[in-house]
C-alpha cells in the first residue's frame, strides 16, 4: 500500500504535474540549458540530486523548527537559505571528493541555487502535507520530470538547428512555441492520477 502511494506521488511529479511543463517552474534553465543534449543531461542530473536532498532537508526544517516554533511564515526565506547552503556545501564536497563529477556538473550546480523549481518542490511538499518519505519521492520525481522535459526539449532543439525555420522564428521564438506545444501535450496526462 505504501509502495502504491509513493509510486503515485512519483508518477504525479514526473508526468501529471511536471514541474516545467505543467507547473511552469524552472523555465529559465529549461530554455537556457536545452541547446544540446549532453548539457541538458548534466543539468538534469544535478537538479535530480539537489531536489532530492533539498526535499529531505526542508522537510526536516519545516517539521522540527518552523512548525514547533510556530514561525511557518518564515518558510520561504528559510528554504532559500537551506537550499543555497546545501548546494554550496555539496559543491565543496564534490570538488574535493570527485573532480570528475564536478567537471560533469560544472556550472550547473551553483546555478541551481537560484532555480525556482527547487524552491517550488520544497514549498509544494509542505503545502500538500507529504510525510518524510513522500517528500523525498516527490523531490526525486520532480527532478526526473525536469530532466525528461529538458532532454526532450534539447533533442528537439538539436533537430531545429539543421532544419529551415523562418528567420523571425529562429532561436528563442521557436523554442517558446515548442515549449508551449510540449506543455499542451503533457496536459494529456491530466487525469492519469487524481490527486
Amino acid at each position, binding site marked *: 500500500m505504501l509502495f502504491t502511494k509513493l509510486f503515485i506521488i512519483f508518477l504525479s511529479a514526473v508526468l501529471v504535474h511536471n514541474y516545467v511543463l505543467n507547473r511552469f517552474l524552472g523555465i529559465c534553465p529549461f530554455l537556457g540549458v536545452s541547446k544540446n543534449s549532453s548539457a541538458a543531461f548534466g543539468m538534469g542530473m544535478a537538479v535530480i540530486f539537489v531536489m532530492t536532498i533539498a526535499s529531505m532537508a526542508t522537510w526536516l526544517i519545516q517539521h522540527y*523548527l518552523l512548525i514547533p*516554533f*510556530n*514561525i511557518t511564515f*518564515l518558510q520561504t*526565506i*528559510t528554504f532559500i*537559505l*537551506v537550499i543555497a*547552503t546545501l548546494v*554550496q*556545501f555539496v559543491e*565543496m*564536497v564534490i*570538488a*574535493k*571528493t570527485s*573532480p570528475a563529477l564536478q567537471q560533469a556538473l560544472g*556550472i550547473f550546480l551553483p546555478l541551481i541555487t537560484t532555480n525556482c523549481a527547487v524552491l517550488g518542490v520544497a514549498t509544494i511538499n509542505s503545502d500538500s502535507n507529504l510525510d518524510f518519505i513522500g517528500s523525498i519521492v516527490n523531490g526525486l520525481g520532480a527532478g526526473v520530470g525536469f530532466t525528461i522535459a529538458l532532454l526532450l526539449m534539447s533533442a528537439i532543439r538539436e533537430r531545429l538547428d539543421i532544419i529551415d525555420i523562418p528567420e523571425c522564428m529562429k532561436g528563442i521564438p521557436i523554442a517558446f512555441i515548442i515549449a508551449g506545444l510540449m506543455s499542451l501535450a503533457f496536459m494529456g496526462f491530466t487525469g492519469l492520477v487524481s490527486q
Partner: protein
Amino acid sequence: MQTVFTAILLLGGLGLAFGLVLGYASKKFAVKIDPKLKSIIDSLPGSNCGACGFTGCMGFARAVADARTSPDGCVLMDKKETKLVSKTFPILLCQRAAGQQEKFHYTGVKTCKAAMLVNGGNNLCDYGCLGFGDCAKICPFGAVSFKDGLPVFNESLCKMCGKCIEICPKNIIKLVPKNQKVYIACNNKDKGKAARSVCKVACIGCGICVKACPAGAITLEDNLAIIDAKKCTNCGECVKKCPTKAIVKQ
C-alpha cells in the same frame, strides 16, 4: 512580541550555523587550484566585464588554461606582454549636450536609447550627445562621469572594455591612441552652414585645419575633419586656427 524574537533568533541561528558549516567545509574540503590557473587568474583584471565572451574572468582563465582560447582574448590585456595596459582611450565626438540646445523638450524615459527613438533625440544637432548617460550607467569601472551634460572619461579608471562605445546610440564615442592629444570633438557630417546653425562648436568642414597642419595629418571627409593619429604630432596648430573651436587639445 515573542514571535518576533523567536523568528530573529531562529533565523539568525540558522544563518550562523550554516555560515559556520560552510566556513568549516571550505577549509576542510579546500581544493588546491592548479598553479597555472591561479597565475592566469592573478594576471586578469578580475572585473568580470564579460567582453571576452566567457562567463567572467574565471571562465576565461579556465579556457586559457585548457588552451581553448588564446590569452589575448581579454580586451584589457596587452597582446605581447600579457599584462594590463591600455594604449587607447575613449573620447567624445561632441562638445554640446542636448540640454544646452534642445530640438524639443523631451520628457520621456531618461535614457539615450529611449530618447533616440523620438525623432533622433532632443539634441538640436542630429549627431550630438543626448546626455542621458547610458555610457556612465553601463561602465563597469565607474570611469564615466558627467560634467555640464557631457560624459567625461577618467583615464586611470577606464579599462577599454568598449561597452560605452557599443551602447551609445549616436556612435560618438571613439577610441583614440593615448598619445594622441588633439582630436576633433564633433561628428556633424552636414554642410558648414547647416552644422553651424545647430551648434556653435561644430566642425563646419571649412578646411582651415587641413591647410594649417604642418604634418599633413588632417583630411576632410563628409564635411568633417579627420586627424590621422599616425601623422599627428600634437603641435596644436589646428586647435589655434579652428574658427569654431571644434578641435580640442587634452
